[in-house]
């Protein structure tokens, strides 16, 4: 779609709140909530596209940036008004459970979130590569006008693409709720690093984004341990700049791929 959604973190925050309220009011485990939340966020995505994105999706990038930044601020403050700024926590029965792998100790919910994220990335990759709808999405991204001339309902494809994106980030929010505190600006701490992973991997390249995310995480953790915690942002941002200097399209992206939707 070539639209960078700066409100992505806030949809993540809404996913975290969905898990929190389902857990608090209905005693629903986040993994049960996930089953209900995914279709719910699909509808949220479709609705937000129809109300907010459809009028601006064909306008300049500046308009899209300002609109999604505005949406981000609105959602943050809506959450603040509705649920206050208090940090909430989803304390499940496995809240303190850990998994030991070799000498490493992993939080159970964090490990599950990682595995499901990898599975979702693989599923999305397969959907985009081999399904008919995925091909329509790629065709629309490559050349909107040509796709329309071939009879593709591009508006519907845009809506579907946006809704799939919101579904995935909403699901991510539900998965992160047992790991992190839930509060109105909770999404902000993930947005920058997610954006770095996407650009580093190569815009439009899902496998590239996944590998880049692992590289950023490794640099962050190893750098924090060996050099100092204060340096961790510096380290991965220096790496980010260095790679973009050598490979402007990212590690796995092809030059100009963002323009052809490869």
């Amino acid at each position, binding site marked *: 779609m070539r639209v960078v959604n700066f409100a992505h973190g806030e949809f993540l925050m809404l996913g975290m709140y969905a898990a929190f309220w389902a857990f608090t009011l209905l005693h629903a485990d986040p993994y049960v909530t996930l089953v209900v939340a995914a279709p719910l966020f699909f509808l949220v995505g479709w609705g937000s596209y129809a109300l907010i994105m459809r009028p601006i999706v064909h306008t300049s990038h500046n308009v899209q940036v300002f609109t999604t930044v505005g949406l981000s601020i609105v959602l*943050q*403050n809506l959450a*603040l008004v509705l649920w*206050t*700024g*208090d*940090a*909430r*926590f989803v*304390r499940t029965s496995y809240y*303190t459970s*850990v998994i030991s792998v070799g000498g490493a*100790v992993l*939080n159970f919910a964090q490990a599950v979130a990682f595995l499901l994220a990898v599975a979702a990335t693989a599923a999305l990759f397969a959907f985009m590569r081999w399904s008919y709808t995925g091909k329509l999405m790629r065709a629309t991204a490559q050349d909107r006008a040509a796709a329309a001339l071939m009879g593709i309902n591009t508006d519907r494809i845009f809506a579907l693409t946006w809704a799939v994106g919101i579904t995935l980030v909403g699901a991510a929010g539900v998965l992160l709720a047992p790991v*992190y*505190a839930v*509060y*109105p*600006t*909770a999404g*902000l*701490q*993930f947005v920058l*690093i997610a954006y770095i992973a996407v650009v580093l991997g190569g815009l439009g390249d899902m496998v590239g984004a996944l590998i880049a995310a692992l590289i950023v995480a490794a640099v*962050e*953790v*190893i750098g*924090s*341990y060996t050099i*100092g*915690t*204060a340096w*961790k*942002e510096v380290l991965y941002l220096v790496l980010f700049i260095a790679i973009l200097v050598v490979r402007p399209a990212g590690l796995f992206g092809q030059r100009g791929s963002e323009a052809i939707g490869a």
Partner: protein
Amino acid sequence: MKKLIAAGAAGIALAVHLGISQAQSLKGEYKLGVLEPLTGNLAVQGKLHLEGYEIMRDLINSRFGGVMGRKLVLVVGDAPDPTAAGSEATRLATREGVKIITGTFSSILCGAASEAAARQSVIYWETSCVDPRFTRRGLKNVFRTEIDGVGFGWYNIEFIAKYLAPRLGKKPSELRIAFLSEDSSYGQGTTEAARARAKEFGMQEVALEYYTFTTNDLTPVILKLKDAKPDILHHIARDQDAILFWRQAREQNLEVKAVVHAGATGYGNPGFGKALGNEANGPFALSEPGPGFLIDKLQPEGQKIEHAFREALKAKTGSDVPAGGHQLAAGGLWLLKLALDAAKTDELDKFRAAVLKMDLPVGSLMNGWGAKFEDSGQNSNERVQHYMLQWQNGELVSVWPEQLTSKRAKWIPLGPWNQRK
């Protein structure tokens, strides 16, 4: 029974009448600017502070004769970040015409807000931020009622050396201490002051780590701390980082003998206990007095305002246990009222002279504070009595100084995670 009801009704009527007549006798209004972060990620604390100001404002107007005989009115500005803090301070001064601004909770906000106030020749009365630089810029318009970061560090090491060390069966010089802090001026100011004081006691510094408080992973630093094997962890946290650290420390089974923090944020924030329940048991936080505080140990005038505030707080919120934000804001506003009443003006030179002349012993104000302002505008750290609180079964209770509290510290040393009950 009827007589009892009649007597009760008469009592209530008299109290209401006295309150109303007190408020009616106030001549005109006095507008005071209030700047707090009411949106954004500092909003939780900002709102607590605003609630503290509002309760104290109502108390001052209804029972203590307003300020300078006038009804105190608050004009509120939202300061979620330094840029907004500066522009809102300017707006309060130029559009609302206030002569004094109070606020601002965070050390990242008070510098920008007070610079803007200075440009408009407006007095800046800080009640909460602890950045040591705040009163070291040579500005004549700034005053701070709260202790500064240096005082935080001083108190924390005093507690570690004189209270914890004997209970751990060690001399202060035998203690291995690690310093961990978020990297704002609040965290750095407090940590550096504590490091300097720890050096005076000969404590062995085994680690020093700073991090950004919005981080979403503290595992690497926890692994480093496990390697360093400190007895004491001096951790200055600011927000959700305390919750994240505590949860991850448990996962990685980091065991230290005590964790000591300073301030109403991080471990000092009620949200820490809400998020973790009994899992929160153990860490200490230097702050304003919590449950267990012996109000009758204060000076008579200190007891009077402390009781009045807690009654008003209970009427408004249903709880007579104030949060740190309530106490800092209300305590600072009460001190401002005393200063204005003494100066009888908000004209800077006369107001400043009245503030510097104040000499109130510890225990005469809210929170057991006293007042003796230095030429820099800082209330002297010795007069701003502080208290060490500890999380005990979902409650942050006062445990030190022991003569000012009925509660006692537990889990020294902390011991295994599953035995802190």
